[in-house]
């Protein structure tokens, strides 16, 4: 450390001593040449050598003063050049440090989003500050709190496709708000599904060319609900089978859909009798549920929702249902 400081100190010091010696030598040489040339001229005019040199020195004036003045002038320019050199070196060092920091920042950023396709990475790198908000109300316009709001946001960064799922619940005013989930300066689409007990599943799909999100209101009429029974081909109930309510098509033909990506929070399990309550449908709805099969895949199964208090059944092969342990 001390050695480095000494090197830096030596570098910053104006090289006066060395320069002074070199400049002094040069000035002496110049003056000696002048005096000898003058003496030679005087000798050519017939003056004896000794007298000629004396006369030449006399005409030249104070050699020490002239030497000092010449040296001072030359060193002044050297000092200015040295200062300029130091300033340029410092500026170069600063530029190198700044570039290094920029590169480091860029490398860290790249590292943080490693694994993401380039188009999406550049998208994430840009403006990703748009939100999704809205309100969930009942058929009378009263807010519904604690409802599951399942949101899927789709974007198309750099000709590629990017989809992310979010889940939240409504507050006491029936409101929900997800922040920083899409870019406002690009096209995006938002699928929202609301699932809550004793209300029919409602969903909304909205595509936005560019700009901020306009809050939506989802109105949930009451549901009649029904019981779903899962059994094997011999009619034996299957307990602990996993089910996701995925879709309902109402009597008017309107489809309400829950994206699988966002549905992890609404997985249901059959009880010991192989039944599960699905209070999200109206009698007569065409219902699709996803059932986790033995190979770990979610398989769609469709039934019509019966009247309230009645049971609909799904019959599957006994060894094709994934009976994972309940947690």
């Amino acid at each position, binding site marked *: 450390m001390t050695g480095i400081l000494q090197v830096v100190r030596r570098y910053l010091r104006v090289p006066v001593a060395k320069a002074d010696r070199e400049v002094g030598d040069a000035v002496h040489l110049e*003056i000696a040449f002048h005096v000898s040339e003058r003496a030679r001229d005087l000798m050519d005019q017939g003056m004896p050598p000794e007298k000629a040199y004396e006369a030449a020195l006399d005409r030249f004036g104070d050699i020490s003063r002239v030497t000092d003045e010449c040296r001072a002038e030359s060193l002044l320019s050297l000092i200015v050049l040295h200062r300029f050199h130091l300033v340029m070196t410092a500026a170069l060092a600063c530029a190198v440090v700044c570039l290094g920091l920029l590169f480091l920042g860029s490398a860290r950023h790249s590292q943080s989003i490693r694994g993401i396709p380039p188009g999406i990475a550049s998208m994430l790198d840009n403006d990703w500050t748009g939100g999704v908000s809205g309100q969930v109300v009942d058929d009378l316009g009263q807010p519904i709190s604690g409802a599951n709001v399942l949101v899927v946001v789709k974007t198309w960064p750099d000709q590629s496709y990017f989809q992310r799922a979010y889940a939240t619940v409504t507050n006491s005013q029936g409101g929900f708000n997800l922040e920083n989930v899409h870019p406002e300066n690009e096209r995006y689409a938002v699928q929202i599904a609301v699932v809550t007990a004793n209300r029919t599943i409602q969903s909304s799909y909205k595509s936005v060319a560019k700009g901020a999100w306009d809050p939506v209101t989802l109105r949930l009429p009451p549901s009649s609900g029904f019981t779903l029974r899962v059994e094997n081909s011999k009619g034996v109930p299957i307990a602990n089978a996993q089910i996701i309510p995925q879709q309902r098509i109402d009597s008017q033909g309107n489809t309400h859909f829950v994206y699988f990506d966002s549905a992890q929070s609404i997985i249901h399990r059959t009880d010991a009798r192989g039944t599960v309550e699905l209070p999200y449908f109206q009698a007569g709805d065409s219902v699709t549920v996803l059932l986790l099969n033995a190979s770990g895949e979610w398989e769609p199964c469709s039934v019509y929702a019966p009247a309230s208090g009645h049971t609909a059944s799904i019959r599957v092969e006994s060894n094709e249902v994934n009976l994972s342990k309940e947690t």
Partner: protein
Amino acid sequence: MTKPERAALLQGTLDMLILKSLQNGPQHGYQITRWLDSTSRSALAVEEGSLYPALHRMERKGWISSKWGRSDSNRRAKFYELTGTGRARLSVEVDAWQTLCSAIALVLQANSQEKTA
């Protein structure tokens, strides 16, 4: 026969004279001294030593540049040469000097007219 008295240089005129002496090409210090002496017919009293600080100062200002070479007597000598900046500076100095001389001449003429009037 008495030798004519040598005129002391006015403050600031040495630079102009040195620049003028280099107008026709590179010269070393002693050549400049001899040129000034012969051209002024030994009328200007230039202390030879005062030439060198002036040369170094003008070199720092960029009016002249220098390099080491060989003199007529085959000795190492430092030759000075006019730069573009120096050429422009010479022009400015000459103009200023001529303006000054004209003004002084006018003043001197005015004084003599008043006396005769």
